[in-house]
Structures are given as structure tokens and as C-alpha cells.
């Protein structure tokens, strides 16, 4: 058997491989279920029902998919340039902190202004945090993978400190509940982001924002000089430099853009869904890490990122709904992991051709 690089990648492979990968993942998780004595088909049926079909399920799936769309886009923007920002997790927390702060500060202002303020603050928070690994990478050539990963934990701990171990502005110190168990201050009604209902499907502002970001990213990467240069540098940094491209600036710009998108996800978490800074909830959800997986599965295509985010969001949502004695805990993570393994394996067939020599 020989593996050789494809000179041209047929377009249909980019669609067929992910679909086959997902199917393969379900076959494998079916095996896991069989081996542990659960009926696979019935479990999958319940999973799909709870994710996409049941009353209100699709709306909940959008809720679960929105943060993944943001972190997925954040990862895709950076990975396209071969900049491995795996700090989406921390950048989302940073956006949640700044977003919640501005939401509380702007109490009493008209809603649209508050939304705009929170969106700007969230993006700024994420971008500022991403600027740290960006500067280190651009000026000291420090590996951004590790620095961005370490910062996730720093911000996570700062966020917990703000709510659980200090008398910060973000902590609820007045209500009875807040005195019994530490929690974030609830944002005022003006800071509750709008949502629109179409045929029973609830579309939160954050989700629409994610679609706008995806469209902007598509334009940026396929229609602008900036996007072109970023991809050239991603493919060959040396070629980019010889062509006179400003590599350092691109690194800073792309990292901050990536951080800003993840930060928007954080602002959307506080504005759309949680209405307070919720460190435990955000940390348990692992949106940042799952987002990287979403981006990889979507092959860094912005519109595919949104779709994949909804698929993985649907699985997460179903996992929550079905939590209970007769539904195996952890199955959702197993399926998500297997989908990824299959997709990563399938990637080989997109880039390479496997020849069987007799």
C-alpha cells in the first residue's frame, strides 16, 4: 500500500469525507453502546429526537451551538494562517468578564446602546488577552500554542476569584441567594439581548451575530488583500517575507481578530443566555476547546463552522436533556471525540491518495 499526495483535490471529497466520517463515528459509538449493553439504535434515536426534532429542541440546540460557532470561527481565523491560537477558551472568559462589566455599568441606558457596548467590550476583552501570545510570538518568537493554553487557566482562575473569593463589582453581594452561595450579579433587563422567533425557532442575537462574523470572515479571506497575504504567510512564511509582506503585523492582527471573535462568544454568553458572570458554568462547558474541534471538522470554512457548531451543539443539548439513569452519561463526549477522530483520519484521503500495489 502506498500513500501519495494528491496534486489536485476533487471538490466532492471535501463534502463526502466529512459525511462519511460522521457516519463512521456513529457506527463506532454504536459498537461502544453494544459492548456495554445499551440498544444503539434506540439510543441514537432518542439523541436525535432530543437534539433536533422534539418540541423546542432545535431552539435549545441553537443556544448550545452559538458559543461553539464563535470559538470555532475564532480558531478557524487563526489556524488558516497556521497560527495555533488554542486560547479561545480564555478569550471567551475574558469577553464574558468585560461584557458583563459593561452590561452592569450601562444599566439605565437604552438597550441597543447596551448591546453595542457589550459587544464592543467583549471583543476588546478577547482581543486584549489574545494580544499577549501574539506579541510574544511576533517579537520573541515564543510558541503561541503553549502561551495561549496557559492563559486559559490564568483567566479561568481570575474569573473564579472575581466571583468566589473577592468583593468584586461583578459579584452579587446583596441578594439573599448571593449571600448563601457566591454568584455573579444579575445583569439589568436592558442588557438582556433580544431574540427573534420564527415558526417557533428562537434565534438569539448572538447566533445572528455569529452568522454575520462568519460572512465577514469569508469576505476577508476570499475577497481581500489582507486575507490573501495571511494565507500566503500561512502556507510559507518565508515566501511571504520575500514578497514584502509584514509578517509581524499579520500575526498581531490575526491573533487579535481571533481573540475578539472568541470574546464576542463570551459577551453573547452573558448577554444572551446566562445574564451574569458564571465561572463554573463557563468552565464546565469547555467551549474553547470544542471550538477548535469544530473548526477542524469544518476544515476552517466559516459557513461550515456554523453548521458543525449546530451539530455538536445539538449533541451537547441532547446530552443535557437525556441525562438520567437510563441514558449513558459521557456518551455525547464519546460520539464527539469519535466524529473528530474519523474526520481527522478522513482528512488523509482528501490530501493523499491511497494506492494498493499488488
Amino acid at each position, binding site marked *: 500500500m502506498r500513500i501519495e499526495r494528491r496534486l489536485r483535490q476533487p471538490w466532492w471529497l471535501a463534502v463526502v469525507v466529512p459525511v462519511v466520517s460522521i457516519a463512521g463515528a456513529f457506527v463506532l459509538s454504536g459498537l461502544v453502546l453494544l459492548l456495554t449493553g445499551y440498544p444503539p439504535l434506540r439510543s441514537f434515536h432518542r439523541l436525535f429526537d432530543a437534539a433536533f426534532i422534539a418540541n423546542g429542541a432545535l431552539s435549545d440546540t441553537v443556544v448550545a451551538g452559538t458559543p461553539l460557532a464563535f470559538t470555532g470561527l475564532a480558531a478557524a481565523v487563526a489556524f488558516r494562517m497556521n497560527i495555533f491560537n488554542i486560547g479561545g477558551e480564555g478569550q471567551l472568559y475574558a469577553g464574558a468578564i468585560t461584557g458583563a462589566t459593561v452590561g452592569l455599568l450601562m444599566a439605565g441606558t437604552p438597550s441597543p446602546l447596551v448591546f453595542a457596548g457589550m459587544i464592543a467590550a467583549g471583543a476588546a476583552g478577547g482581543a486584549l488577552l489574545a494580544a499577549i501570545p501574539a506579541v510574544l510570538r511576533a517579537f520573541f518568537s515564543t510558541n503561541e500554542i*503553549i502561551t495561549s493554553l496557559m492563559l486559559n487557566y490564568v483567566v479561568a482562575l*481570575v474569573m473564579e476569584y472575581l466571583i468566589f473569593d473577592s468583593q468584586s463589582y461583578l459579584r452579587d453581594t446583596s441578594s439573599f441567594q448571593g449571600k448563601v452561595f457566591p454568584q455573579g450579579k444579575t445583569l439589568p433587563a436592558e442588557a438582556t439581548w433580544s431574540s427573534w422567533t420564527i415558526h417557533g425557532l428562537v434565534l438569539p442575537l448572538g447566533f445572528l451575530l455569529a452568522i454575520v462574523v462568519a460572512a465577514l470572515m469569508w469576505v476577508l479571506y476570499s475577497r481581500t488583500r489582507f486575507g490573501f497575504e495571511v494565507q500566503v504567510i500561512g502556507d510559507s512564511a518565508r515566501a511571504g517575507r520575500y514578497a514584502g509582506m509584514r509578517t509581524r503585523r499579520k500575526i498581531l492582527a490575526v491573533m487579535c481578530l481571533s481573540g475578539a471573535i472568541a470574546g464576542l462568544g463570551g459577551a453573547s454568553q452573558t448577554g444572551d443566555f446566562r445574564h451574569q458572570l458564571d465561572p463554573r458554568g463557563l468552565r464546565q462547558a469547555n467551549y474553547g476547546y470544542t471550538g477548535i474541534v469544530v473548526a477542524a471538522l469544518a476544515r476552517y470554512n466559516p459557513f461550515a463552522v456554523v453548521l458543525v457548531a449546530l451539530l455538536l451543539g445539538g449533541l451537547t443539548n441532547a446530552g443535557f436533556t437525556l441525562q438520567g439513569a437510563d441514558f449513558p452519561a459521557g456518551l455525547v*463526549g464519546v460520539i464527539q471525540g469519535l466524529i473528530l477522530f474519523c474526520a481527522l483520519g478522513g482528512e488523509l484521503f482528501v490530501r493523499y491518495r491511497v494506492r494498493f500495489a499488488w
Partner: protein
Amino acid sequence: MNNSLVVVVLASGVLYGTPLLYAALGEVLAERSGVLNLGVEGMMLMGAVMGFWTVERLSGPTPLVLAASVGVAALAGAVMAAIHAFLVVTLRANQIVSGLALTIFAGAAGLSSYLGNDLHLSGKPPHHQFQEVLPASWQNLPVVGPIIFGQSLLVYASWACVALVALYLTRTRLGLNLRAVGESPAAADAMGVNVSRYRYAHTLVGGAFAGVGGAAFSLSITPQWEDGLTQGAGWIAIALVIFAFWRPTLCLLGAYFFGAFTALPFALQGHGVTIAPELFQTLPYVATIVALVLVSSRAARLRFGAPAALGLPYVREER
């Protein structure tokens, strides 16, 4: 004297540092071969759950059961690492994504939780656990008693592992080949070293170490099973590898340093001093970033930096 703050913190630093040490040693081996495995957390959790399962199900004398459960934990970690190795070595997948996928697959909301649930392990009391092995009179010695003699076999075994790995890397032919594979796979290949085989072997051994590290939680520290028991220790282990400049002996120091940081806020609370544990716990991560920046210059990177081929797939036809 043995109740003084320094002694208490150092003793618990050794206790909490031990799982970090095992996992970091494993990661050093994998990364020295050029394979970055971000799935440490997942492999540790699988080791923890399978190790605890063995202790629950196996009957027999305690030492045998514990030895068997450490073996099972190592095996579980290695099986998880095999998935990663297959994807990144044979199928040339992106190492970062594959490692993260492994953590999602095996992690707190994945297979480890699925198995813990399916085997009904949650909240069960441990039938056997690692305990202090040396005589009480030794353990009562001032200072060294609690820190060095008041530890379990897992701790002493980890010291042997550090020595073995350090000797292996710097004093054996295999270790030299391994370093060549991580620094310049093309040169190693030309030398006649089988790059894929080295990468597979060391990723798998790395996974086995991570599995044992996980078992240190479920058989010694906690000792119980609950979902997400390792609480991010796998990520600290990855940081530790960098902090230790990919050297096993420095891993030992770093592990106890990081372990002491986890223990210090709680020990201080016992002495009536309250500092915010969260802010304190950020220090290991900040220290890692600083260490990484310090070795970023070209000259320092050659001496102390990451293996040059870390994270890059090796394809003979494309070098």
C-alpha cells in the same frame, strides 16, 4: 517541627506533584520523539477510572492488587495514546486537534465518565489504596520524615522512573536515536532509524505514564472515582514539560514546585492566613509563560527549547 508550614507544604507538594510527575515524564518521552500530545488529561482520566475499577473488582493481597491496577491504568493510558499515535504518525493528522479530540473523547464528559458510570464506580469506597510504607519511627524524623519517608510506593517508584528516563535519554543508543527523531527526523531516517516506530513507541509509553499519573489520583490522593477527578492536572503536566525544558530531572523539581503551589493556600488557611487560592494558583501558569519567553532566543532555544520537529508530521517523500 513537622507541623511547621514549610514541612506540611513540601510534604503535600510531593503528594500532589506525583501524578504531575508521571504524566510529565510520559509527555517528555512523547515530545522528545516529536509528538505533541495534548490528550494528557484524557489519558490520565482513563488511567484513573480503569485503575480504580481493578481495585474494586480484584480480590487478593493488597500489593498484588495495587500492582495489577497500576498495570491496567498504564494499559488504559497507552490504548488512548495509540489512537493519537495512529492519527498523527500514520495518518499525519494535525497533532493539536488530535490531542484535543482525545481529551474530549476520553475526558470528563467522555469515555472515562461513560465507563465510571457503566461500571458503577462513582462514590464507592476504595478496597485498596497506596499508603505510607516505611516504619513510623522513620516518618517521625524531623523534616525529612513527612517529606521523604512519609510517602507511598508510587512516589518512590516515580523517582526510579525519573532516573531511568534521564539515563535512557542521555546515556543509551536508543535515547540518542529518540532525540534525533525529535530534532531532525530526516537525519534520523537517513541514519537508518525507523521514525514511525520510535514515535509510536514513545507516544504509547507516554500514554502509559499518563495513565499511572491518573491512577495516583484514584488510588492514592483522593482515593475514589468521580467524573473529572484530575481537575486539569493533565494541562499542568503539559506546562510542566516546558517549564522543565524537556528534561526528566527538572520535571521532578517542577512537579513538586507546582504541587506545593496547589497545597500552599490551604496550608496557609490552617495557619490563619488567608490569601486568595485562585490568584495564587495562577502562578505556575505565569511562571511557565515566563520560562518559555526566556528560552525563546535562538541560542537558548537550541539548548533548552522544544525538540525542533515537535508537532510536525514526518513524510519521507516530502522532506
